[in-house]
């Protein structure tokens, strides 16, 4: 019935418009009678459902942004006391006199050296507070009668492990990506890409456990180093977590190189390898660079793997085959036992802030490289 009536209705409206075009009042009343839908079809309408959905999606997306901002604020606020030494609460010394130290199991020769150093640092420092001199020191010994917060061994430890991890994983990940993007037959591509990406989903504690139990023994047998757990083992284990990151981003940017460029190179009589190395790889280089940066960021911030596989001794040395302790592992290991608001607590947050700034900067640079350089390159600016 409605369907039949509809054309009639519109016809009458049309007729009424044409016949009574000079008189406005009857038209208006008729329009009201017919309903607003035909007359006010152009009128903006408020759709509550859509409005709510749109606003809540916006809110949620800004929520994740807020989380980052809050973490940023919290970490920095907690580490703030470090910048004003007077505000640092001094550890209750009377209680700590009897506290055991971590230096007990050190070999005799090193012990002597450490004792010497301790003497020196004790001479220089008052009360073991978080002064700049103390933070720049060479010994990390936060729980002791004269706590030492020398971050140098931790920073060097992080750098050593990260360097091993990136030097090992970057070539492997880039070559694997090059293979999947440029050479692999379809079946191999469909097998490799998800397989390597699944590697990214393995919990780091599992990788750490694997490194601790299996990999360390294997590497020690193969290379014959003295300490079973060390920076090298930690770095190799870490590279299992870094490879998927560099691989994924590199593979994406290699696949994004326009196919016409590859064809042009092949049509010039270049072999597949020449095309991949001299055309595709350079064209994708900003993306690859970004991948490496993100890989470094991940390696630097990764905690569980290095906590389990590096030996976790805060020794300052350039030797890759000595145990190390990284900044992240230090936080992971000590945060649970620290006195709230203590200098030690503040210093741990300060380390966290340094880590945060470092990875944040790396990610920001990587973003610029992916977004701008890579895109510009293909659009020709």
């Amino acid at each position: 019935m409605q369907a039949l009536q509809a054309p009639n209705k519109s016809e009458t409206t049309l007729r009424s418009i044409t016949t009574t075009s000079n008189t406005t009042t009857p038209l208006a009343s008729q329009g009201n009678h017919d309903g607003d839908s035909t007359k006010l079809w152009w009128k903006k309408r408020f759709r509550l459902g859509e409005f709510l959905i749109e606003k809540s999606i916006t809110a949620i997306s800004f929520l994740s942004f807020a989380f980052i901002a809050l973490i940023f604020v919290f970490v920095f606020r907690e580490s703030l006391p470090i910048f004003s030494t007077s505000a640092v609460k001094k550890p209750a010394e009377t209680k700590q006199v009897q506290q055991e130290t971590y230096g007990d199991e050190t070999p005799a020769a090193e012990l002597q050296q450490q004792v010497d150093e301790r003497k020196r640092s004790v001479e220089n420092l008052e009360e073991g507070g978080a002064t700049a001199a103390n933070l720049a020191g060479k010994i990390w010994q936060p729980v002791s009668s004269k706590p030492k917060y020398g971050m140098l061994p931790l920073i060097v430890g992080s750098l050593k492990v990260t360097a091993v991890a990136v030097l090992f994983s970057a070539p492997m990940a880039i070559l694997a990506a090059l293979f999947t993007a440029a050479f692999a037959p379809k079946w191999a591509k469909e097998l490799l890409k998800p397989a390597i990406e699944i590697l990214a989903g393995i919990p780091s504690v599992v990788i750490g456990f694997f490194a601790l139990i299996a990999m360390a023994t294997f590497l020690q047998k193969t290379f014959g180093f003295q300490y079973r757990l060390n920076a090298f083992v930690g770095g190799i284990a870490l590279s299992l977590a870094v490879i998927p990151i560099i691989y994924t981003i590199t593979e994406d940017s290699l696949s994004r190189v326009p196919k016409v460029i590859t064809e042009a190179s092949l049509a010039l009589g270049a072999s597949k390898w020449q095309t991949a190395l001299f055309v595709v790889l350079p064209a994708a280089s900003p993306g690859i660079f970004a991948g490496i940066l993100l890989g470094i960021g991940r390696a630097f911030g990764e905690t569980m793997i290095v906590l389990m596989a590096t030996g976790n001794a805060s020794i300052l040395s350039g030797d890759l085959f000595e145990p190390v302790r990284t900044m992240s592992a230090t936080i992971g290991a000590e945060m649970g036992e620290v006195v709230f608001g203590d200098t030690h607590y503040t210093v741990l947050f300060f380390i966290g802030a340094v880590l945060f700034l470092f990875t944040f900067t790396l990610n920001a640079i990587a973003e610029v490289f992916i977004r701008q350089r890579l895109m510009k390159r293909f659009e020709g600016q």
Partner: protein
Amino acid sequence: MNQNGYKITTRNLSLSYGPKLALKDISVGIRTNYVTALIGPSGCGKSTFLRALNRMNDLIDGVQTSGEVLVDDIDVYRNDVDVVALRKKVGMIFQRSNPFPKSIYDNIAYGPRINGIHEKNKLDQIVERSLKQAALWDEVKDDLKKSGLALSGGQQQRLCIARALAVDPEVILMDEPASALDPLATAKIEELIFELKEKYTIVIVTHNMQQAARVSDYTAFFYIGKLIEFDETKNIFTSPKEKQTEDYVTGRFG
């Protein structure tokens, strides 16, 4: 090179993408130092045929080829033929200009470099010669360091031609080289084709029948994977033997 004056000859060339037959029994002779145009409606197989000549179709999954493509009397689909060497001899210009994201100089030096030429002055010579041949030298000689992608569309296409010339090919395959260009840039490319045929054998796919009539000496008309007619260009356009050819060149379909 070839005693009978044919640079490329195909014999019963058939090609299929999976189950779909794209070319049926194409037998054609392409004469040395002439321009041969391939015309026909979209999807008629003319680009596929062109890409079969230097085996660019190898890059597409599921392509099967039968029959022979003789380049200088060698069947290039034989198992022992080096595709890389073939493509050096039979170069290609694509529909969309595709310079590398490198400088103008490096774009052209790329081919010679992968062939082992690294001396600076030799490369300089090749770059200058190729750009002059492609009628681009005067426009870019002062900024060879500029990115090839910063050039205009017509200049980019001439850069691609210069890049192809730098490896000293004998045949140049052009896949609708001017279809994305404005009339002025098109005229320049056509002029260039005219000059290039002195030294090179050229096969050009085109959608534009006036262009085929203007630049080519021979024309092949393709329709649904079949070669309908192949003759001197003036015959194809003035007195075609086949009804379909006549309908197409007079604009009745296509």
